[in-house]
Structures are given as C-alpha cells and as structure tokens.
C-alpha cells in the first residue's frame, strides 16, 4: 500500500479576482465615533485604518463619549468647572484607558482583552489610530462636545482637524461618503 502523495506546493488558489477592470473610485467613509467603550473604539479604529489602507477618503467625526478617547493619554482631568472635572475624574480619558461596556469587572475585562489581543497579534486601538492617521484618515472633534465637557485643543491628541459641528459631518455624507455610527 502506498501512501497518498503529498500535495504539490505551492497550491494555486482560485483565480485572482480581476482588479483593474471593475475598479471604481471609492466614495469615502464618514464615521461618527460616538461611543467611548473599548470594544466599539476598537471597531471604529479597525474600520478607519482599513478604509485608509483602501485609499477611501475617510473622516471620523468624534463626539460625546468618543471624544474622551481622543484626549491625550497623559491628560488626567479635563474641564474648567467642578462638574466637568468630576466627569473626567469618573471616567479616565485617553485611548489607552477605555473600558468594556460589558464584563468590565473593574478593569479585569479590558486587561484580558488586551492580553488576548497581544497573544493573537491583534493591533491595539492606539496602534490602529496611529496607522489610520498615517494613511490620511482625518479625525475631527465635535465643537459642542468640547464646549460641554470643557475639553481644549491642547487636551486632544495631535493631528486632529479643526472642531466642527453636525452640519460638516452631514456634508461628508451629502458628498457621497458612507455614514457609520459607532
């Protein structure tokens, strides 16, 4: 009895999809980064960096809890009055300090998520944000959220666009970009 022949390598995969012919210019992507939860921040950063890699013109409008993500990691307290300061005290700003919406368990959940991510070579939200920025994705802060939380330009990470409002975001969609609310 003879053993089956080992497969001849390298095996050719099914025909590559024809690229040039069906290529259409991507219209772009307009993400609203609303949530400050770790898992949603992760999803937003994966999509932003991939869209950048796919040469899709991409803008990320950063608002409400999402703006907390874009405060520099080393900034601990933001705001001018006691309520604004209290808000930042209760939920630490910065992309490296996000919490899970479920199973947070005082930081055990995020710690395990980060450990698993490292084990399976999944890039962190911070790394993905850096990649996205390098590939031309523009992150624009919401002026209203900045005012309400007392967050200043110098509190935010470098390289963000000028603060804008909802009308600017909607104008991206009006120009044909696909809207996403995360």
């Amino acid at each position: 009895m003879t053993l089956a022949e080992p497969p001849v390598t390298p095996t050719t995969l099914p025909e590559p999809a024809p690229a040039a012919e069906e290529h259409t210019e991507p219209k772009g992507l307009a993400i609203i980064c609303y949530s400050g939860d770790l898992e949603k921040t992760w999803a937003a950063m994966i999509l932003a960096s991939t869209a950048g890699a796919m040469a899709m013109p991409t803008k990320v409008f950063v608002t409400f809890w999402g703006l907390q993500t874009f405060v520099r990691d080393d900034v601990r307290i933001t705001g001018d009055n006691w309520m604004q300061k209290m808000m930042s005290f209760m939920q630490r700003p910065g992309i490296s300090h996000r919490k899970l919406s479920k199973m947070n368990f005082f930081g055990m959940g995020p710690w395990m998520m980060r450990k698993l991510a490292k084990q399976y070579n999944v890039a962190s939200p911070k790394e993905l944000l850096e990649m996205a920025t390098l590939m031309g994705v523009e992150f624009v802060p919401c002026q209203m959220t900045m005012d309400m939380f007392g967050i200043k330009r110098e509190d935010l990470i470098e390289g963000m666009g000028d603060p804008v409002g909802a009308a600017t975001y909607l104008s991206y969609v009006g120009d044909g970009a696909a809207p996403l609310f995360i």
Partner: protein
Amino acid sequence: MDSVTIDAKVDARGLNCPMPIVKTAQAMKTLASGQALEVLATDPGSVKDFEAWARSTGNPLAEQTVDGGVYRFVLRHK
C-alpha cells in the same frame, strides 16, 4: 520560480486583521507604478481581503498561492 520580479516584500505572517492590509497599503506607497509587492500572510481571512483590497484600490493582484498555511500575494502598483 517567481514569474514576476519582486520589488518589495511585506511579512505579515502571524498578524491579524486588519494589519496585513494596512501594512500592504503602507508598503505600496513606497513603490512606483508597475512595481510588484510580495506579501506573506497566515490570516485565512486575508485571501478575500486582498481580493477586495485589489479591487477597491485598483492595484491588480498578480498572483496568489498558498504553501503550508502561508498565503503569498503578489500585488502590482497600478
């Protein structure tokens, strides 16, 4: 046995979504029109992803092979 001359390489073995694509896009920026980029990846999801990336960016996928769990893609700069 390579049928095309490789101008640059990306080793994305072990990396997970979306890093193989992100690294490929970054490497492609350093190439000129007509040059070829070889990418090695182990993420099974990358097979469909590279087809989609090629279609969206217009950089044709010249070759794709698999050898012992390692996927090899050759992409040409449009």
